[in-house]
């Protein structure tokens, strides 16, 4: 790993250790089991030596030594299996716990964070990065036992014949060095291949989803040209990786043979001279062979560890992000509804707000003041970019205003808990997101586990009941990306039913009818009128028919309220209002 990243890597290691502390007992257990395996394994060449020298060369009890080797085999086999089990269990556990922490963190992070974060990035943090971590943790028990094995074997070899040990062990460190160096060199090469593969995937993906354009213009050759380039790139990068492999792997495979040759040559002459037994020679050889795999593996594990550390560092970037929107430390409660005191009063007081997009602050609201009485419905009308939808987002506290404040029933939003606030404010978004679950669960989204009658009642009110009954499994039909797909209008009605179940004191219809076929709009309008009755409602819309549902309309322009009145009044008196509406519905010929 390069020098400049060393400090960063150390931070990653620290994190890894911190995570592993939680599982230290199981990991220590794994290490102990690994040591037992080492013991069994290391004894085998000694026993073989004794068997050859005492059992075969001299007339000792061959059976006795053979049985001892078998016993060692049982020990090594049993503990090898146990070690593996512990290693996998613990590494999957690490992965699982980290993934849960990431998910919980993602759920709690403010919307401003999600505006900037890419879905794919977050996904790979909790999949491929955790895979790296798991790949390292799983190696820990084996790593520990291999290190002890290497140490044990080296000690045995030096005790039995220091010179021969020195000569025969000479090539071994090179295995370790080569393995590490190989791992470092091959990693970027593999990443480069993956990157080219991703680019190819991207071209295939856009060719499939843009097939209408391609077919429409006969542009197959253009895409083919792009794909050929990527296919060539993949081959080039793969060959580069293959060359690295060819440089290292045969060498790593053959280095131990040099040790064996040394043993044969040096040791052979010693046996001829009578300084060494033949069994000793064989044992020496066997020990050397035993070291090959651990030496390789130790080198790889170190490299794995470095990768795991930097993966964990990326994971930690998410985990250490502090949610900018959080519950108040000493939260207040919303006043309860009473006969004399209706709830649902919303008040925007001199609100200034802008989005911070890549260091550019885009001003949206410039001192907006708006008061909505309990039970009143207000339509908010304005051109694109006038800040209509921002009002929804601020009311939900997806963002906080930079200056000014918003109050719900007299309480500043920042003094409420997020869940109290969001249970009190219900939104029907322009784009209805359906979750991969049943129709019922999607409707009962705000109150999971609510009884089926309530769900059906809400669906009926939202005008969704009839089409739901026509779905393959009615209320049990699975929706979402992997389920049954509904039309825009149907999705919208599910969203309205969702809002009905939530039963909020303030309802926001954020462009809720725009995705709906104009000929079907009236059906939804009726559903909306039902939900709005007696409930504070903000209607963000540009279709006159939807605007007319509200008691009054406000015109939003340049981030402030430019005009207030009923729809008819504004139509009659306000030029800008007419302009905005006309622009929305002007001779709409769109391709």
């Amino acid at each position: 790993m390069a020098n400049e990243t060393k400090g960063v890597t150390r931070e990653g290691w620290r994190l890894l250790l911190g995570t592993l502390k939680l599982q230290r007992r199981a990991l220590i257990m794994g290490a102990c089991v690994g040591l037992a395996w080492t013991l069994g394994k290391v004894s085998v060449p000694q026993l073989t030596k004794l068997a050859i020298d005492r059992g075969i060369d001299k007339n000792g009890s061959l059976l006795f030594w053979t049985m001892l080797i078998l016993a060692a085999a049982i020990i090594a086999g049993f503990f090898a299996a146990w070690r593996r089990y512990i290693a996998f269990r613990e590494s999957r556990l690490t992965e699982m716990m980290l993934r849960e922490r990431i998910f919980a963190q993602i759920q709690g992070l403010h919307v401003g964070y999600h505006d900037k974060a890419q879905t794919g990035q977050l996904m790979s943090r909790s999949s491929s990065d955790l895979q790296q971590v798991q790949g390292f943790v799983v190696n820990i028990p084996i790593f520990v036992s291999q290190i002890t094995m290497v140490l044990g074997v080296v000690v045995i070899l030096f005790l039995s014949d220091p010179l021969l040990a020195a000569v025969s062990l000479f090539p071994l460190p090179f295995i370790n060095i080569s393995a590490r160096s190989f791992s470092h060199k091959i990693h970027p090469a593999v990443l480069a291949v993956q990157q080219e593969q991703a680019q190819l995937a991207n071209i295939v993906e856009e060719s499939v989803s843009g097939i209408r354009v391609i077919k429409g213009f006969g542009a197959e050759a253009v895409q083919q040209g792009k794909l050929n380039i990527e296919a060539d790139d993949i081959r080039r990068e793969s060959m580069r990786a293959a060359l690295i492999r060819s440089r290292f792997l045969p060498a790593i495979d053959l280095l131990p043979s040099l040790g064996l040759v040394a043993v044969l040559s040096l040791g052979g002459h010693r046996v001829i001279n009578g300084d060494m037994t033949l069994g000793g020679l064989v044992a020496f050889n066997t020990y050397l062979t035993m070291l090959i795999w651990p030496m390789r593996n130790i080198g790889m594990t170190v490299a794995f560890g470095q990768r795991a550390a930097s993966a964990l560092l990326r994971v930690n970037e998410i985990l250490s992000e502090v949610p900018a929107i959080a519950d108040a430390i000493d939260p207040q409660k919303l006043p309860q509804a009473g006969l004399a005191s209706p709830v649902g009063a919303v008040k925007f007081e001199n609100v200034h707000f802008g989005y911070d997009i890549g260091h550019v602050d885009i001003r949206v609201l410039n001192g907006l003041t708006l008061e909505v009485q309990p039970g009143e419905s207000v339509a908010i009308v304005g051109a694109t970019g006038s800040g209509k939808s921002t009002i929804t987002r601020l009311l939900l506290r997806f963002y906080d205003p930079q200056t000014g404040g918003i109050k719900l029933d007299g309480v500043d939003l920042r003094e409420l808990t997020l869940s109290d606030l969001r249970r009190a404010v219900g939104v029907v978004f322009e784009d209805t997101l359906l979750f991969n679950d049943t129709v019922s669960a999607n409707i009962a989204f705000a109150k999971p586990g609510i009884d089926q009658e309530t769900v059906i009642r809400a669906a009926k009110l939202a005008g969704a009941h009839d089409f739901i009954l026509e779905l393959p499994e009615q209320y049990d039909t699975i929706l979402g990306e992997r389920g049954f797909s509904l039309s825009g209008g149907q999705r919208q009605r599910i969203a309205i039913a969702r809002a009905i179940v939530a039963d909020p004191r303030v309802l926001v219809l954020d462009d809720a009818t725009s995705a709906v076929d104009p000929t079907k709009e009236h059906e939804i309008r009726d559903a909306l009128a039902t939900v709005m009755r007696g409930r504070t409602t903000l209607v963000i819309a540009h279709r006159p028919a939807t605007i007319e549902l509200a008691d009054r309309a406000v015109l939003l322009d340049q981030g402030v309220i430019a005009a207030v009145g009923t729809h008819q009044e504004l139509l009659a008196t306000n030029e800008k209002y007419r302009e905005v509406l006309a622009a929305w519905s002007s001779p709409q010929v769109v391709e």
Partner: protein
Amino acid sequence: MWSGGGRGGAGRSGIEDDQKLDRSQTRVVLVRSIKMAGEFRRTAALAMVYVVITVLCTLAGPVLVRHGIDAGIKGKDGHALNMTVVAYLVVVAIAYIIGRLQYVALNSAGEGFLRLLRIRVFTQMQRQSMAFFDREKAGVLVARMTADVESMSELVQFGLMQFMSAFLLLFFAFFLLMSLSWELTLISLVVFPFLIAASVKFQRDSNRAYLEVREKVGANLSALQEGITGVRVIQAYAREDEQIRRFKESNRELFRSHLYSVKVSTWYFGLIEFAGIASSALIVGLGGYLVHKGSVSLGTVVAFVLLLATLFDPVQQLSQLYNTLQSAAAALHKLFGILDAKPDVDESPTPTALPATGDVVVDNITFSYAGSVKPALENVSVTLSAGTRLALVGPTGAGKSSLAKLMARLYDPQSGSVSFGGVNLRDASMDDLRRRIVVIPQEGFLFDGTVRDNLLIAKPDATEVELLTALDRLGLRERFEALPEGLDTEVRERGSRLSAGERQLVALSRAALVDPAVLVLDEATSNLDPGTEMLIEAALERLMVGRAVIVVAHRLSTVQRADKIAVVADAKISEIGTHAELVALNGHYALLAATWNKSQPH
């Protein structure tokens, strides 16, 4: 493979079928891949030779040790020992050199093959008709070109080599062992049947567990994705805790499936460890007995112990690699499936050139989408005269979009014909067809690259002058040049840097660049910001000048400006005529027009 065992049950076999091919299918796939490998066969053959040499080198090691012990050490012959050592060093050197060459040769053959496969499959995929793309899920097609091809790269990188070496090693080792001592060979063979049986059972169990894991990984990933993409709605409804609980559920299920897969497989690793040591115990014990009897030499026993150690890995590898090989065969089988898919809307072998202009005549066509019983269009006839506008209106799903697409030959009708200037579109040259009739889809789809790349996709050989003239003709040149880097602005991630309106402007400009005789428009239902919308409208008006236009209309204003309006309902054209005629008819159209009128602001 399940039915024979009588275990596992019918439910499981379905999953297995998906994964594995039967013997004859595998053979077909392999033979075909070898045929396809054509130009790489020579390199591959060379690689084979290298593999054989390295295997022989591997086996030479223990044999030389035996020779050294028996002739040198036991015979107290220092010279013989030295010669053996030198020979050993030479073998190591050869093994190293050939080992490097073998990697390079195998990889270059393998990667060349994968490259060819990628290109061929993609070519064939693109030749398919729209019906193919309707039928196949986008994700599946992408997976074919990525995951399925990549599943073979491991094989190419080292799997195939390991497989061949392992196989050859076992093959040669058997003869070698036999020549050294048939008694000891029989003794060592005792272990192998158990080892092979264990390996097969292990493979089967862990495979099954793996399928389970894969399924849980999929479920977990989609729960994750839902949590990320849906975070705004989740937070808006204060549902975080519930969502976290659900995620944990799927996450723990994934953990359990991982644990299960370890449980069913871990014994195997213990057994292998045990068998490895136990077999050398057997050799030492029984071999020692034979040495005492004088029928084998001590050197032979030592060589056997060393050789057996080198044979254990190959046996394990073989069963593992056999599996990789099988899944690669399954992947290839799927890819060949695409290569074999015959494009159903293909160019005629003797394409006819199309005239520069002409009427589009739809003559009594019937069309249904694959897999649907109800026809989307039934006995429909309509004529679009050169330079006129035809609006298609009607309820969603009644067939108006299908009709528009058939008029551009994105599909072929099951019966009847569509012709342009008297030439049946089935006989027309595809190139000509795409230049005469252009479809502009609802959404302006953008490809990765610059705005210019995106425009040129319509006509890759267009000159800069042609491009700018086309933009000028629509009055859009300034608009595009106003982008941060003008036409060279990168659109990034499917055009996230361009607004929806700008994306549509790109779509219109593409059409202008092609300069077709007929435009097929699918009008968007959603709204854009008013400024861009007006710009689009103006550009579109200019684009339509002098061309025949078929528009799938959702708006009254569009319809009113058409020369002819056709109401498509229940797979048929129920009414056709001018706006005034149809209003007078007081049918479906009159009703629609009235609804539209109501939703207008004035």
